[in-house]
């Protein structure tokens, strides 16, 4: 019986570990600094997490499908620069669809390489990280991109305005989370993504077009990246070429924190949202408490490993690895 209870505790903690950690963090920070739980602050954190969050939603699809996407940061820089550049050249109404089309094209290229040519996604997206950065620099000539007339454009709506008192980026993030959550959990496509990531061979034997599904996950991912680029561009109406640099790992950390397995086949959109919020609140909380930014690095380190460890422990039913 003692084994049973210990087992139960491990399982419970492991399954709800992320939420428990989340609550503990919130309570701790709230005690340390009252402002932490002020509505303004919470909205502020969610708003500034929105861009990473939107990207994480897309990467969730890729990871559940059994692949990685390390190119999202670089690709987000591309989207941002392109839409800002086109804004003054062809106007925002044209700039946005063109930017989406170009970003989706990049996503399609990666999807083609990983899905149809079956190349290793880690290396492909690593290569694309570098290549897309080169593309962005070529596009911009290395210059910062700024919209000339900042106060006279409706383009700032996506990043700066509020609807019903809620900042638009939060609404976009929320709406996209709901839509993608339904796509993943309720549609045939979503089910096929899980199958392909869970056991690609069995998926093929079940008549699932594996290559196409993988291809589509990268399209979803690049769509999200384009959305993030739009929010980013609209938020600051100007950007440098490296705006998304390094975000790929933050995004991946959020997705992993949310419990998606790198082996594919598991994870949900909701959990990814939690993962994103945890990272956002940690960053904000540590700043408010007055700790240096690098403390955030170490806290993130600890929390990622703890979260995944608990998840792994729950699956095998024991805390420590049985490997001798």
């Amino acid at each position, binding site marked *: 019986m003692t084994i049973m209870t210990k087992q139960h505790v491990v399982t419970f903690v492991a399954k709800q570990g992320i939420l428990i950690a989340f609550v503990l963090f919130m309570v701790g920070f709230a005690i340390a600094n009252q402002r932490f739980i002020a509505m303004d602050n919470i909205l502020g954190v969610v708003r500034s997490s929105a861009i990473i969050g939107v990207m994480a939603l897309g990467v969730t699809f890729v990871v559940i499908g059994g692949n990685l996407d390390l190119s999202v940061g670089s690709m987000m820089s591309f989207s941002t620069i392109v839409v800002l550049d086109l804004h003054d050249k062809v106007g925002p109404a044209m700039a946005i669809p063109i930017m989406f089309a170009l970003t989706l094209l990049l996503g399609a290229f990666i999807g083609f390489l990983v899905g149809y040519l079956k190349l290793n996604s880690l290396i492909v997206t690593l290569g694309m990280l570098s290549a897309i950065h080169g593309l962005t620099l070529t596009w911009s000539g290395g*210059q*910062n991109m700024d919209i000339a007339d900042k106060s006279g454009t409706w383009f700032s709506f996506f990043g700066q305005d509020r609807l019903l008192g809620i900042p638009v980026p939060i609404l976009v993030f929320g709406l996209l989370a709901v839509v993608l959550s339904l796509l993943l959990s309720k549609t045939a496509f979503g089910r096929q993504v899980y199958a392909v990531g869970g056991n690609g061979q069995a998926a093929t034997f079940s008549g699932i077009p594996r290559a196409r599904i993988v291809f589509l996950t990268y399209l979803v991912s690049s769509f999200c990246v384009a959305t993030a680029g739009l929010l980013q561009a609209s938020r600051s109406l100007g950007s*440098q070429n490296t705006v998304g640099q390094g975000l790929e790992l933050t995004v991946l950390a959020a997705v992993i924190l949310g419990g998606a397995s790198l082996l594919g086949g598991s994870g949900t959109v909701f959990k990814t949202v939690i993962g994103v919020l945890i990272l956002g609140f940690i960053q904000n909380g540590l700043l408010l408490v007055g700790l240096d930014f690098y403390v955030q690095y170490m806290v993130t380190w600890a929390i990622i490993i703890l979260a995944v460890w608990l998840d792994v422990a729950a699956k095998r039913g024991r805390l420590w690895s049985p490997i001798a």
Partner: protein
Amino acid sequence: MKMTMTAALACTTAMFGAAAAAQTTTIGITQNNVGVDSYQTTYERAFIAAAEANPDVDVIVLDAGGDVARQLAQMEDLIQQEVDVIIIWPTNGEAVIPAVRRAHNAGIPVVVTNSNIAEPGFDFIRSFSGPDNVTQGSRSAEIMCERFTELGIENEARVVQISGQPGYTTAIERQQGFDERLPEVCPNVTLVETQPGDWNRERSQQVMEAFLIKYDDIDGVYSGDDNMGIGALNAARAAGREGIVFVGATNFAVGYDAMAEGDYWGSIYQSPVDDAEAALQTAIDILNGEDVPFLNYFDTPKITQENMDEFTKPVF
């Protein structure tokens, strides 16, 4: 791609005039991190343009991508290619000293540009050409203080600072200048907190958002360059906080515009074109055997809403 073309053109012209080629001199430059911001990109372009305008000079333009190891390798390559002068924009003011010494020992004069190397290396360089970052920081502090005095809050104002990428000489020196000068001119102004914004507008916007939550009373923001300053300004705008004095360094086009609109108070006017041309001219002067000053600062004046008419809008 454009660069390759330029280089190709430079080469073909060189090949057509074999006699001329004999007289041309080759200048190699290794830059810090082109593409990370407009300043460096504009610098590179201005440098190439200036070199092209001079028929006697060929240039090899390299970019270290912010990586010290790559910059050292590029120094070695330039030495190995036996260029006549090396211009270096250090990724790290101390780490490049041995490489600079090697060039010195190989008989190649070295000009440091934009951001100086540390003192132990002074023996091995012929000249430093660039802005005086410490003075820039001091001047920013003065702009800030003068504005507070105008507003009559010089005895109570609270300031936050957003510094550049941790570890970079320019960031360190500007912060140092600001930190030292502010208490001298405005002893009662408090510098509440400093956080790095990594030369990144987005990062700076996030830092400012947190500052705004944390502190109800912020009167001034000093940022290591205008790019970050605009990020901070965006955050303040979004939070509906007005009346904050924004002062930056290295006036960017966005900063200039924001000044024109009255949102941004002041900055330091520093032209990458001047920077690049000064570096190239220093190198050419050395080749021509002219005497060059060891510290060849070009002037970086204060720019505020009040005197901005005297300056043209930065191109970057």
